[in-house]
């Protein structure tokens, strides 16, 4: 679907996608409210988290992913998805979680696989 809209302005495409995504999330929110499952304890930590998740982790990544995924072969975009847990582990390790040999090897493999896929498809990627 992203490929079909690759000539669209990236910012416009990300904004329109986000708006539709929000619309489709509203019935879930309504269901939580109606069934009494909705909960909200507002404090500074939650506001900071929602701002981070909204601006960077949702808006920012939607923009970056829309731009990147419309300009690379599917294999390249796909292999980046494997890096998410590897980055998650690296972040946890950097913030104090004990290192695990198997997980560290997994991170290296995920990174090596990503670099291999990128190296195999250089001609189709525009250069800065």
């Amino acid at each position, binding site marked *: *679907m992203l*490929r079909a*809209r690759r000539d669209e302005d990236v*910012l*416009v495409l990300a*904004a*329109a*996608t*986000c*708006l*539709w*995504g*929000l619309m*489709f*999330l509203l019935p*879930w929110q309504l269901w*939580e409210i109606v069934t009494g*499952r909705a909960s909200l*304890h507002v404090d500074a*930590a*939650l506001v900071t*988290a*929602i701002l981070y*998740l*909204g601006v960077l*982790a*949702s*808006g*920012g*990544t939607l923009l970056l*992913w829309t731009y*990147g*995924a419309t300009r690379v072969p*599917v294999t*390249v*975009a*796909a292999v*980046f*998805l*494997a*890096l998410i847990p590897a*980055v*998650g*582990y*690296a972040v946890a390790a950097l913030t104090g979680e004990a290192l695990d040999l198997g997980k560290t*090897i*997994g991170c290296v*493999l*995920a*990174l*090596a*696989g990503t*670099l*291999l*896929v*990128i190296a*195999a498809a250089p001609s189709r*990627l525009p*250069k*800065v």
Partner: protein
Amino acid sequence: MASVNAPVLALSGAVMVWGTTFVVSDNALRMASPAVLTVGRFIVAAAVLLFLARHRSGLSRAIRFWSVALLGLTGVSLNYGLQNAGLLYTTAGTAALLQAVLPIATVLLGWIWLTERPGGVSAVGLLLSTAGVVLVAGGAILRLDLGALLVLGAFSVMPCTQ
């Protein structure tokens, strides 16, 4: 010095941020229910993106495309909604293990729909990355419970956005 590839940098940036969100979401879910948190973050995201795009031409036209609506449904609502809901009912290890199916599922769909067949080197790279994800999941046991099905649903719709 080799030139830098802008789309690859963009994908790297997105992945770097996504990699940090689990810790933030996990903490935030103690203060807000999954729908409240998910809707809250996308209200902020939509406000920022629509503000930035307000002077661009084609915004109202893009909103009317069914394929953009479908992108919103799969790439945003189902992906984030099912993930957040699923994490309530399964372990983080199971979710991490299920993530291993994402790259290969995406490539298979790209192969079928876009006829983009991966080359031999790319296939090796994909297998290496998938093995890496399994190792990062670190001996987690795959529990096929309701949460696992929801997370699998979230990961299954993601390839459709490509």
